[in-house]
């Protein structure tokens, strides 16, 4: 392949593919066990409607707290053990104790020292 736009696109594509693989493994590790209750991030298949997600959370014995920018991921609270397992039975893909994806930018010289950001992402005690 010659050096040009195609080369750049192919390189970018391979990098993104590797990144997606690593993210997949990490997110699988980060998923909460089925017996977990409390505040969680419930992730549904992309394209799930708000109504369907809402019903799933209620049927699992929990309550929706707020939607996220992703649309198919909701912060939900379950007060009884096994909430995550029930969410999965209702169609959720996984549940997390933290919001595992979020924005950040370093710039050439700057790193944010916002020590509150972790609290925003952290759901489980």
């Amino acid at each position, binding site marked *: 392949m010659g050096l040009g736009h195609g080369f750049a696109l192919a390189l970018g594509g391979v990098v993104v593919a590797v990144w997606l693989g690593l993210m997949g493994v990490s*997110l699988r590790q980060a998923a909460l066990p089925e017996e977990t209750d409390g505040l969680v991030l419930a992730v549904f298949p992309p394209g799930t409607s708000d109504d369907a997600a809402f019903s799933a959370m209620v049927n699992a014995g929990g309550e929706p707290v707020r939607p996220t920018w992703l649309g198919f991921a909701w912060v939900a609270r379950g007060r009884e053990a096994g909430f995550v397992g029930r969410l999965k039975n209702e169609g959720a893909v996984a549940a997390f104790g933290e919001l595992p994806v979020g924005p950040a930018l370093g710039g050439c*010289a*700057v790193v944010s020292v916002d020590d509150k950001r972790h609290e925003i992402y952290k759901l489980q005690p």
Partner: protein
Amino acid sequence: MSLNSTAAAPTWRTPAVVIVCGCLIAMLAFGPRSSMGLFIGPLSETRGWGRDVFALAMAIQNILWGAGGPFAGALADRYGPAPVLAGGGVLYALGLWLMSVADTQLLLHLGAGVLIGLGLAGASFGIVIAGFARMVPAEKRSWSMGIATAAGSMGQFLFAPMGQAFIAAYGWQTALVLLSGSMLLVPVLANAFAGSGGMNNSNVAVTGANIGFMEAIRQAFRHRSYVLLVAGFFVCGFQLAFITTHLPPYLTAAGISPGLAAWSLALIGLFNVVGSYASGVLGGKMSKRYLLVANYFLRGVATAVFILVPITPVSVVIYAAAMGLLWLSTVPPTSGLVALMFGTRYLGMLYGFAFFSHQVGAFIGVWLGGILYERTGSYDVVWWMSVALAMFAAIVHWPIAEKPAPSLAGAEAKA
């Protein structure tokens, strides 16, 4: 301009392999750094430190990155980029590992500050670009500088969520160890540059008179166009650092949701990939000087419009996209101009000085933003200062002579 030799490097070190390895190094070097802010919460919580402890480590890191740039560049010019990149990667990895186990403030400052700062000086895109300039055909040089800068930008964009996922999956200390491990790939990848070592190496295309480091510095700072370029790069640092630090609180104070304020920075990062690459492509086809004039002028216009119109989610998104396109797109034409003025022989060091000016501007942008906000109760003064500096940078780039420095031509004629 003399060309020592264009003899072929060892077979597998083709320009394509060098570019892939260089881009991965740029990505790896910028990546973990963009995740640093994610660790302040859990680290401070575990150790019981205030944010001032982490902030000092970051300040040390930035100043050493900037101040170490000319030295790392000179080492790369003298011995080739490979050992410098490899050493930088090892120091970076050690710094990240030390962060994970640091139980005293001194150890944190040594790891996150000194080691990572020096690691960045040795392993970031400035050295990669100097290596590309030696090993990539001249007609692809600007493009290669663009793709290296874009790769660094992409590293920022991809590593931040990955750092967060690592923390969620494995805890913050293991996450740091994983990031440290990823930096050990740098010495492996740096091997691709091994054929470009040393200014007397006959296997690479080194251009520019062999006049010695001190003489090169003396001639560079006597050359008006180089001084103007370095002054302009100061403005780039000022604006980037000010926006990265102060845009989110500025937006939330104006009623924008914290989520969109944070995502505006991510949007800048995403468009930065496109802007950096496009800048490299354009730099190979048109005047680099005019490209820089246009960049700074558009930054000034975009910022002026942004602060004059009411702040809405739409204006935030448009401004973030515009600034993203203009963000690191100064790097390929700036490094390209240094190579054009003085050749590639001292490119690492001379670009390092320009980058140091960038880092000083960044320091002042962050500091002044905070100081003037405290004194005036708003960011208005610094925003307008940023507009004025953008216009200043556009003006000072205009008279830059886009040709080899006369002193260099004279030295080459004598050689």
